[in-house]
């Protein structure tokens, strides 16, 4: 009887080992192998070729453009995320649920569509196209378009991390600080900020990884001019489509993979060390 009871609480050992084996093989084939492939292909022609690929002028220009784009898009979305979370978590108003749903909207829109909306508005045949060309302003196929598309696809990251976190924390501490005579900004910096800093960092981390790695949306608005409007992921595509540059494509990829790897390590560290100060450990 006791044995039967125990066997009803846990799977038999062979089943357990089978499930572990399936899990590890699935993750090995779908996650580990692609990651190893990137580095193997990047180094297949030796370190000298690898180094040359990374110091190529167009590649360096793409690295600068990617850093610049993220340096504009991430702070914008961070500011937005904090403002949205402050309004939604600390106050009651009508339409709050709708607003929260709308903030998540960019996650359900294809990256290609996220980029194309800006072509429809600002492209040469877009709504504002004629006006923009009259005033000699370039948005599409230039930095502003790349920044707009990147900001669109990374729009929800910080907000969706902070909203549930700040909702769970309520307003008591802020109310107390205000009662004691602290001003609004002081209350925010000294009371709210310490409570949300890890969640904020977590959101910024994911936002940045996506901003630097975005491909589809940026591809639509970039114009693919090597050395000018190619971000790192677009440079990967450009090199990959050139048969002589196959391993250079993987060399640039290895930098992006490294970025992904560091992001993952930091993400796991935050979840392990500050898990109770993060809310939703959901995807995206």
């Amino acid at each position, binding site marked *: 009887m006791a044995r039967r009871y125990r066997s*009803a609480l846990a799977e038999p050992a062979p089943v357990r080992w089978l499930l572990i084996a399936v899990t590890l093989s699935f993750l090995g084939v779908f996650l580990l192998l692609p990651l190893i492939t990137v580095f193997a292909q990047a180094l297949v022609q030796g370190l000298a070729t690898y180094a040359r690929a990374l110091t190529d002028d167009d590649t360096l220009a793409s690295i600068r453009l990617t850093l610049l784009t993220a340096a504009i898009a991430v702070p914008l979305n961070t500011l937005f995320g904090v403002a949205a979370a402050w*309004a939604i978590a600390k106050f009651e108003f009508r339409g709050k649920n709708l607003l929260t749903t709308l903030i998540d909207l960019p996650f359900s829109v294809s*990256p290609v569509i996220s980029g*194309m909306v800006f072509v429809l508005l600002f492209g040469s045949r877009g709504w504002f196209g004629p006006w923009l060309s009259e005033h000699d302003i370039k948005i599409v196929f230039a930095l502003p378009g790349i920044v707009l598309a990147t900001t669109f696809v990374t729009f929800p990251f910080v907000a969706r991390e902070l909203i549930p976190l700040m909702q769970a924390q309520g307003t008591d501490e802020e*109310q107390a600080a205000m009662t004691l005579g602290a001003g609004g900004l002081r209350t925010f910096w000294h009371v709210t900020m310490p409570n949300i800093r890890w969640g904020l960092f977590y959101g910024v981390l994911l936002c940045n990884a996506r901003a630097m790695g975005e491909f589809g949306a940026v591809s639509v608005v970039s114009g693919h001019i090597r050395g000018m409007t190619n971000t*790192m992921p677009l440079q990967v595509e450009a090199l990959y489509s050139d048969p002589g540059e196959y391993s250079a494509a993987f060399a640039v990829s290895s930098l992006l993979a490294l970025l992904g790897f560091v992001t993952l390590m930091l993400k796991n560290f935050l979840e392990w060390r500050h898990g109770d100060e993060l809310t939703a450990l959901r995807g995206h």
Partner: protein
Amino acid sequence: MLPGFGLSLGFTLSYLSLLVLIPLAALFLRAAGFGIEGIWHELASPRVQHALMLSFSGALAAAAINIVFGALIAWTFVRYDFPGKKLFHAMIDLPFALPTAVAGIALAALYSEHGWLGAPLAQLGIHVAYTPLGIIVAMVFISLPFVVRTLEPVLEEFEPQYEEAAATLGASRRQTIVRVILPTLVPALLTGAALAFARAVGEYGSIIFIAGNLQNVSEIAPLLIMIRLDEFNYGCASTIAAAMLILSFTILFAINLLQAWSRRHG
């Protein structure tokens, strides 16, 4: 009363409208401006229908595969101990952290006829790269973390007393899993599947390198939009994009209803 309500809400609403809502509205207006006849002509074309069908059926297949393996993976990580567990667990979010273009060329290299997986599979007569199968592989990769991540917290909070009660009442392990544990997981499974589907259906970067992009064979809807844009055919591009958005919101809404139903009857 805390300060800053007007400022923060005002900023939120303007930023959301300017960056997301107005541009998306412009897309629908553009499609509408194309006229009923134009829209109909575009949507009736076999190439467009094939591309939409491929993106949607591929994403549904990928979501289904991820329900099965995601549940299995989440279960293994929450319930069992094994060497290397922490390391493998840390890797689950890799598809979120690895840029899609990198994933795309890595998958293409891996599954091409000379690749580590492509070569042995080709000997078995299975061709993944440059076929619709490759599209599903990329979609499974990109949406892999969603089901695992939504399921794990639910499994962790699952009280063992229900399993104990079932065991005491003489249920076998299989009965306990199918009748007691699985039903409580259904809402989380559906949430994860919906997120996975939404990501996979619009995916572009990780797919186009492995897909081969043959018209009427392995051409996904986002790629067709891209081609129409390159031809400056904004009306057609907007029509396909609007159709994609309407279809995927409808499917997400249906999954939401199913989830509400399963919560009531769970």
